[in-house]
């Protein structure tokens, strides 16, 4: 579904991502792990088009993404969450999800005026479902800035889902969470998988990555040093040395 071929992104002399090959298949959950500064977030940013590539190519559903702006990539079905939460703090929880309804299906189902000026039934039902899924139903009229940290993380995931993505890029969704919140997040990711979502999970928290992914790629200094199932990665000597630690 998503294919990175020799993708490189350099910032001056810094090779944040340097010749990365990675494939994510439909309905697969792929983990992307590695030490701080190994290029994980940069990889997400080039896939969503926030930075142009230095070299290489990214293909999504057979289409080369070169030159497509971020909002166009979203319409192809690529949504993301941010490592440092980026909500619309002065909008309510409900409005945060409303703003995100930009999928081609939304455009097709509702006419221009209904989409921009109305808040119709279909819109409300969809948002209600997302709020239910995220456990935010009771908070729908609260300003996003007033939510607790855990709630903000949940709203960010819900906002990405409101765009009806085919591929979801989660950039350290468990950062700063306690183990109970991580368990809830794992349940949500499992539920999404059962609905057929494809996910690229960038994460530091091993209990999450090892528990939900089908396959893991390990980055170090912008390059892939290993790839395999969670069990393979846990026992890979190179990965242990570079990242996981231990003998």
């Amino acid at each position: 579904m998503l294919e990175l071929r020799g993708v490189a992104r350099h910032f001056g002399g810094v090779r944040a991502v340097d010749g990365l090959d990675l494939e994510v298949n439909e309905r697969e959950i792929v983990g992307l792990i590695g030490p701080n500064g190994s290029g994980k977030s940069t990889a997400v940013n080039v896939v969503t088009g926030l930075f142009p590539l230095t070299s290489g190519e990214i293909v999504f559903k057979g289409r080369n993404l070169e030159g497509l702006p971020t909002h166009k990539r979203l319409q192809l079905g690529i949504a993301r969450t941010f490592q440092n939460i980026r909500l619309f703090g002065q909008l309510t929880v409900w409005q945060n999800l409303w703003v995100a309804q930009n999928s081609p299906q939304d455009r097709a189902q509702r006419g221009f005026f209904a989409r921009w000026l109305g808040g119709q039934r279909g819109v409300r039902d969809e948002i209600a479902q997302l709020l239910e899924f995220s456990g935010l139903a009771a908070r729908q009229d609260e300003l996003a800035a007033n939510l607790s940290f855990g709630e903000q993380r949940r709203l960010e995931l819900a906002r990405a889902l409101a765009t009806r993505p085919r591929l979801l890029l989660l950039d350290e969704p468990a950062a700063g969470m306690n183990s109970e919140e991580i368990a809830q997040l794992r349940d949500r990711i499992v539920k999404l998988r059962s609905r057929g979502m494809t996910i690229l999970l960038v994460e530091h928290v091993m209990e999450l990555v090892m528990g939900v992914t089908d396959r893991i790629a390990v980055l170090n200094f912008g390059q892939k040093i290993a790839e395999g199932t969670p069990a393979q990665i846990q026992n890979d000597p190179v990965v242990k040395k570079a990242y996981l630690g231990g003998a």
Partner: protein
Amino acid sequence: MEFYFGLAQIVGVHTLLGLSAYIVLLTGQVSMAQAAFFAIGAYAAGMLTVLAGWHIVPALGASALLGAVTAGAVGFPALRVKGLMLVVATLGFGEAVRLFFFNFDYQVAKGGIKLGPLGAEGFRQIRFFPENGWTSADVMLFIWVFVILIMALLWWFDRSRYGSVLRAVGEDELAAQSVGVNLTAVKVSAMTVGGAIAGIGGGIFAHYTTHIEHNNFNVLVATFAIAYPIVGGLNSVFGTLAAVIFVQAFLIEGLRDLGDWRNLLFGTLIILAMNLRPQGLFGRGRA
């Protein structure tokens, strides 16, 4: 009574000026070009009623259209830059427009006198209202019909999805892009709507003062345009109206008896208002 009609006219026109900046400010852009769109609307409507003999309503329609087209054209290149750079770019455009009207001569002889804009002398005798026998009360009502219509429209816009999208762009462009918002389309459309409102405001301004000149559209006016929504708060259109009343009716007219002390107090009260309510008089949440 005439005094209060006049004051209501000023408040109405300045509200339109403030609202034209309000919608642009929602997207996080500070435009110093609103006075320029105001000027274009003023000269266009004036020339249409005086030289072409149009009725004022279609003339204001033409002002809105010209303001919108110019704002859209300025918006495309200008919105590629952000923050202070955008302030400087729009300031430059505003001054260019003012200097254009400073040098703009287009006079036509009508009934033995020459009418039309004459450079630094300005554009005199925009007499549609007196010629048609409108009293100040009529003019005031006419202005407020537009103000109320535009406020209602913007209020409704604001509560639609469009309003949330504008605010989302104002808060975090990167996040807005990442949920599929087309930044260019949103910013240029906000600029265009703002240009149309400023154009209408300018057209009305030209007719109630009957005499306009380049200096009516200087940097101070552009500053007022963005100051109203900022002082009033970006929570709703009523903040802008409240700020115009606060500034025009209270600070400028209400304190007139204080003589020279007024200017001193004017600044102090603005600073006080912004310190006590940094989110604006009617704003909610954080600044």
